[in-house]
């Protein structure tokens, strides 16, 4: 896939809306990612740590946010990608991934990225650099 739209500061990526995260998704992501930490899949363990419920792997949200990039440019153009996990994503959370080009310099676009839940909670903030020519 190649990008034909103009990439310049201010360009918004098409938002990516994810359906509510189910317990099944958490179990499958634990297996697929190899992160078997039970706090994401076993309610008994979550409660023993003082939590009301299991919560989603941060890397699941980072994987969704990565789709925002790979849906937009071919993957070999992605030079760097990083996030801060600023809030926990609860079960049934409904993430939306957004991104915006903040600068273009020396053939590299820098993007600001975020994942936000339906109630407005920001769960991830991050940035990426993407080669544009």
């Amino acid at each position, binding site marked *: 896939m190649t990008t034909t739209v103009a990439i310049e500061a201010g360009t918004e990526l098409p938002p990516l809306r*994810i359906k509510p995260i189910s317990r099944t*998704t958490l179990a*499958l*992501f634990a*297996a*697929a*990612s*190899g*992160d*078997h*930490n*039970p*706090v994401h899949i076993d309610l008994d*363990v*979550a409660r*023993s*740590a*003082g939590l009301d419920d299991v919560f989603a*792997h*941060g*890397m*699941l949200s*980072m*994987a*969704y946010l*990565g*789709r925002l*990039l*790979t*849906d937009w440019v071919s*993957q*070999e153009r*992605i*030079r*760097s*990608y*990083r*996030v*801060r*996990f600023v809030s*926990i994503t609860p079960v049934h959370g409904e993430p939306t991934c957004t991104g915006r080009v903040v600068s273009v310099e020396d053939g590299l676009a820098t993007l600001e990225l975020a994942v936000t839940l339906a109630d407005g909670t920001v769960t991830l903030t991050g940035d990426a650099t993407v080669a544009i020519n």
Partner: protein
Amino acid sequence: MAVDPAIIGTELPSTTMTVDEGRLRFFSTVIGHEISADLAVPPTFLFSIELENPNPFAWLANAGVDMRFVLHGEQSFTYHSLAHAGDVLTAKPRIADTYSKGGGALEFIVKETAVSRADGSSVADLSTVIIVRSPAQ
């Protein structure tokens, strides 16, 4: 409990994984990623290599950390070349830093992992910030 700063600089066991097409398809399906025709490894899958270690969190337990109180604080990937199904990738992690905030209420551990192929060519450099919250929080 405070994480002993002596762990800074510790090289953790490296993990080598042959990237399996079925595993990549499974991972891609779960996250809704449309896998490319050349079976490129999705951007965040590289984080999973070291998790193939039979006991990937042993080093945290050895540092006195209870996994139930661990949060993933930050994650970064710097990409050097695209990996594909069939590639044999090795992840070499080391502990780069540890520090605390909030009078010890939160402990931070920074782990840096280099991912490369058997021929030594670099695929990516990863950095992970792990947060250990105090059980009382």
